[in-house]
C-alpha cells in the first residue's frame, strides 16, 4: 500500500514543483522549494521501498550527480552570460521594464532559467545525500584511500 503511494506520489510532485517554479515570481515559492518537494517524494519512496528498492523503482535517480552539476552550470550561465554582452552579471533579459512574453503565468526570461538551474541542483544534491545517508555503511568498512607513503609526515 505504502509502495503504491510512493510510486503514485512521485509523478505529481513534479507537477507541484513545476507549478512552484512557474508561479515563483508572483506567488510563494521558488526553485529551491520545488526541488525539495521532488526530493521529499523521492525520500518517501526510499522510506517505502528501501534504498535499493527505490533506486530500482526510479532508475533515473542515478543521474542525480549530473543533474546537480548541470544545475549549477546552468545557474552560472544564467547569472554570468551578460558579461558577454558587456553588462554586469545577473542583468536579466528582457531587462527591467521591458516587455516579457508569457506562457500562461510563466514569464519567459532569464531568471526562470536561473530558477530551473537551482531546481535541478537541489534535486540532484539532495538525492545524492539521500542515496548516501540511506545506507551509509555500504563501503565505509574499507579505508578511505589506498596506502600511499610518499610525502607521508614521519
Amino acid at each position, binding site marked *: 500500500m505504502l509502495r503504491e503511494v510512493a510510486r503514485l506520489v512521485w509523478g505529481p510532485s513534479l507537477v507541484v514543483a513545476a507549478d512552484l517554479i512557474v508561479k515563483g515570481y*508572483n*506567488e*510563494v515559492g*521558488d526553485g*529551491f522549494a520545488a526541488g525539495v518537494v521532488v526530493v521529499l517524494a523521492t525520500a518517501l519512496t526510499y522510506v517505502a521501498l528501501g534504498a535499493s528498492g527505490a533506486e530500482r523503482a526510479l532508475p533515473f535517480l542515478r543521474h542525480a550527480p549530473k543533474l546537480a552539476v548541470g544545475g549549477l552550470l546552468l545557474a552560472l550561465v544564467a547569472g554570468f552570460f551578460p558579461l558577454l554582452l558587456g553588462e554586469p552579471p545577473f542583468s536579466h533579459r528582457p531587462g527591467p521594464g521591458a516587455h516579457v512574453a508569457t506562457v500562461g503565468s510563466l514569464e519567459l526570461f532569464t531568471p526562470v532559467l536561473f530558477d530551473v538551474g537551482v531546481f535541478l541542483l537541489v534535486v540532484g544534491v539532495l538525492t545524492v*545525500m539521500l542515496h*548516501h*545517508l540511506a545506507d*551509509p*555503511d555500504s563501503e*565505509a*568498512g574499507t579505508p578511505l584511500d589506498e596506502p600511499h607513503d610518499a610525502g607521508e609526515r614521519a
Partner: protein
Amino acid sequence: MILAFALAVAVLFGSGAYLLLQRDLLRVVGGIALISQAAAVTLIAASLTRGQAPIAPDPSRPVSDPVPQALVLTALVIGLATLALLLALVHRVVVVFRTTRREALTAEETERAHALEPEQQRDRDEAT
C-alpha cells in the same frame, strides 16, 4: 516582542551550546541545528517592519521587511547543507572509531606522545 524574540534566541543558542558540549556526537549535531535556528530567528527578529506578506503589497498597509526573509531563505539552505555534511562526518567518525578498537586507538595516541617525549628531552638538552 523585542524581549520575547531575544529570549527565544537566548534559549535556542544556550541549549544549542549546551548540546555542543555533550559527548554524544549526535547531540553535538543537534546543538548545531538549534544554533542555526537561533540564527534564523535572529534574522527574522531583525526585520525592521512587520505586517502583510511582501507579495504585491498594498502600499497603504505596513509590509513585512522582505530583506531578512531573503537572507533567512539563504541561511536555511546553508544550514541544511552544513547539517547534512556534519552528520556524514559524525557517522564516519563513529564508524572508524568503532572499527578501530578503542585500546588500539588510545594506544596510538599514547604511543605518539611517548615517541615525542625523548625528542623533546633531547631538544632541551641540546639547546642548553
